[in-house]
Every structure is written in C-alpha cells, then in structure tokens.
C-alpha cells in the first residue's frame, strides 16, 4: 500500500528524542517515572523513548506493555476478534508517574480504555500521554501531553505508523480511504 509520507524515519527519530526530553523536563527528573506502551506500536515507541532517556540521563526508566482489548467499548461492533497481545507491567504503579505511549491519537477511546486498565493495576500519582501523531477528531475530553507531530486530517483519511521493530521501516503515512466497509471504521 502506498500513501503520502507525513514523517520520515529521521523525523520520527528526532520527535522521539524531543519527547524523551520533554518527559524528563516535565517530571523534573526521572524519579517515579515509568513508561507504558499501548499494544501494539506504542510498545516499541515506549522502548525507544526509554533508550533515549537512558542515553541522556543515564537512568533506566521501567517500560511496560498494556493490551486494552478487554477494555474496548466496541466488542459487538468489530468484525473479528482482536488479537490479544498481552499485558506486562513489571513494576508497582502505586505513586508512580505513568506516561502512556501510543502511535496515533484519534478519537481518544483507546486512551480512555488504557486509563481504565491502568487503574485496575494500581493508583498512579499521575498519568500522562505521549503520542507520535495527533490527528484530531477527538470524541472524548482527552489530550496528549507530548506530541511528535500534529497532523490535520479528515475522517476519510487513515494514518499509518510503521516502526522498524514491526514493519521493517520507520515512516508515517497518510492514505485517502476509498470505499470501506462501515464495520472497518475505527471505533476505539
């Protein structure tokens, strides 16, 4: 599938580094900080941000993975069952500052589900949100604290993030949707 590039590999790299600096600045250090990537592409992004923090601050920030499948609000709307990728939060959330990491922020429903899931694991002192792309069209009162790139889009477009860990290349692409089944409409 083709598509217009809206971020190159180099831009993704720089945005990730900038976000890592912003996170540390906002927290005034790394104490109590933990990153949680939302399955699937939020997880490698969270690892990259952690690696960048390690490089600049010489501190290893814990990284977890969160699968929100069972917290979705659209079980009877999706055409097929989602692949459950697994949740792994190898640290105590109580009192920590959790930075949720995801690739694209769109309706905000994924983030709503992720926050519901997180609070079932403990009581973080704060939850923040970092995304690579914010494409607008929120359906919930949710905003990101750290954004790689704001991309104005129409609802008829789809934004695809490719990461080398999963897709063998780094790129953010935008496509015009041709004719789509209504059930393929992103809802969470």
């Amino acid at each position, binding site marked *: 599938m083709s598509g217009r590039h809206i971020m190159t590999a180099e831009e993704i790299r720089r945005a990730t580094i900038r976000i890592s600096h912003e996170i540390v600045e906002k927290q005034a250090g790394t104490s109590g900080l933990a990153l949680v990537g939302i399955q699937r592409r939020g997880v490698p992004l969270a690892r990259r941000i952690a690696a960048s923090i390690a490089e600049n601050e010489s501190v290893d920030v814990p990284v977890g993975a969160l699968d929100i499948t069972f917290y979705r609000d659209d079980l009877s709307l999706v055409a097929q*069952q*989602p692949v459950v990728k697994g949740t792994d939060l190898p640290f105590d959330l109580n009192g920590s500052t959790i930075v949720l990491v995801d690739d694209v922020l769109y309706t905000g429903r994924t983030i709503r589900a992720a926050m519901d899931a997180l609070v079932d694991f403990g009581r973080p002192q704060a939850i923040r949100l970092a995304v690579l792309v914010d494409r607008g069209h929120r359906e919930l009162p949710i905003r990101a604290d750290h954004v790689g790139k704001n991309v104005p889009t129409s609802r008829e477009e789809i934004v695809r993030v490719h990461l080398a860990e999963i897709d063998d290349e780094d790129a953010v692409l935008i496509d015009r949707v041709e004719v789509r089944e209504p059930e393929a409409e992103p809802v969470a």
Partner: protein
Amino acid sequence: MTVPPAAEISTPADDAPVVVPSVDAAPETQAVAWRHRHLLDLDVVSWPEIELVMRTTDAMREVLERPIAKVPALRGRNVTILFYEASTRTRVSFEVAAKNLSADVVNIAAATSSVSKGESLVDTVRTVEALGAELLVIRHAVSGAPYLAAETFSGSVINGGDGWHAHPTQALLDLYTMRAHLPGGSVEGRKVVILGDVLHSRVARSNIWSLTAAGADLWLCGPATLLRGFEAWAGRGAAAGRRFHVTSSVDEALRDADVVMALRIQRERMASGLLPSLREYAARYGLSAARLALARPGALVMHPGPMNEGVEISPDVAAGTQSLITEQVTNGVAVRMALLYLLAGTRPGDAA
C-alpha cells in the same frame, strides 16, 4: 436448525495472524474469526477455531494473574446459568468466569425453580430470555437438550454438559491443560488415554473431537461393557486421518502413554449388569501407581472430576506429582472466560 457438516480437518494452522495495517486504533484482528453463535459440541468447531480458543485462553490466564483479576469486556451482558443436574465445578467455574469479565450472572438451579412445577425446557428458556438472558449456559441430563434450547433462544447457548452426549468446555480445558504441560506445547502425535466409564461419558465424547483434531494418538480404554459402540466409531475413524483406538486391555492402553485421563464411574447412570462390582472395577481398571508406571515417565494424569478416589483412580495418583487435576479446574475458568468472550462477540446470523 441447520447443522454444518462434520468438522473440517484442517491441518494445524500456522499461528501467524494476518497482519493488517495499523489503522489508527482499529484493532488488528484474528486471522480466524469465531463464527459460531452457540457452543453445543466440538464436532462443528474447526481446528483453527480451537486454536483461537487456546490463544484467547492464554490471554485470560494473564488476566487471572492480575492484581484485580477482572476486566470489563462483558460489562452489562447477562449470563444465565441454567443447570438441571448437580454440579459444583462447572457451574461455579462458569459463574467465576462470567464475573471476571464483569457480566451480570443469574444462576438457576432447576430443583428450586418452576421446573419442579412441571415447566417445559422450552418455556423455561423463553422465560429466562424474557428476563434478559443473552448468554445461556445449560446443563441437562437429556442428551440434545441444549440443541432444543438453541432453537428457541435468540442469544448464545453454551452446552455445560448434556446427558452422555457432549461437554465441550471440559474438552477444551483438557486440551489447554495438556498443551501447557507437554513438551513443544502440542498434543500432536502424543498418546492420550481416556480410561474408565467411556460409555456414559460426555467428557470422553467431546474429547474425541478435539483430541483427534489436534493430532493426538487417542486411546479409549475400559471394560467392554463400557465401550459399547465405540469400537464401531473407532473402526470408521472419527474422521479421515484421525488416530483413534479402543481397547479393553489396560496394559496395552497405558504402555508409553503421554497423558492418562481417568473417568468417573457414573453410578447414577449405570444400568445393572454393566459392572460386576466397583471393587472388581478398581482392581482391574483403576489408575494405580503400578499401572501408571507403564506410561512414559512423567506422564500427565488428569480427571474431569468429581473423583471416586479408590475406584477409578487411587488417592496417591490423584494427589501425586504427575496430577494436573487441580490445574484443570483453574484452566476451566480461563477457557470459559475465553468462550464467553468469543460468543459475546458474535452476531445474530452467525452459524450455530
């Protein structure tokens, strides 16, 4: 009700899910869809679908290990559990599974319901549907009763055991437990022995479908009186290419077995003349430590419960290091969570 043709025997499917592009937050979907509105038996469930249940069960096991073992996937959905037969583990297992998914659970024990006043099964099903039931778990002493319920009920019916016929959730939790403990995580080519009262066993009948589909070398063993009809079934083969043997020789069955599943002697269903005495049965067919020694070292010991210890299984084997009987119960919760989740995601119009 149209019944699809007998299970298609697909080759064990490659595990790789179809990778669809990340469309914002739309989920990556399973390569195989669950398309059954009901779970009545495993004869119509294909091997890729069984593997989907196994993968979903893995995810549910992870949920069970969380500090709060509860997710909101079925919030606001009504699961009604209608049991016409005594049960502890299956009924409680379904109830715990439904509650772990945040469903609303209604429990009906037939003995204390209007069934005791003579209400028919169909009327009871209509009544629970009118009271809001969306997923109906049913156990009945009459084989086929859940099929009748499924014809009336507009939601999903799960067979929690019907007569001698089928107990699909038990067979799936048995398969899951075996895969979790066999080297390589597969029962393919493994010698699996089901030992005991096969004749009255819905557990055995459902396990025949799933274990032969999984490629196991399946052996049924018991006194000839408790194997009636199964020789003919084995002679035909459960389906093409499946390995399925029937024998009355315990030694032949147990030799080099990888898994031994003992079945309860179902005294409540036993017609006279099938067994000389329980004592003789225990002596000739009971799973003792000496008999278990014929199997491979470390062979897995299973029992669907409840056990008559000292009859079909000796207490030291049941509580021994090779026994997975308690883990079967834990896995039963995870498997039933997976099935409730998959069935709740189906829509009217999906196949039975």
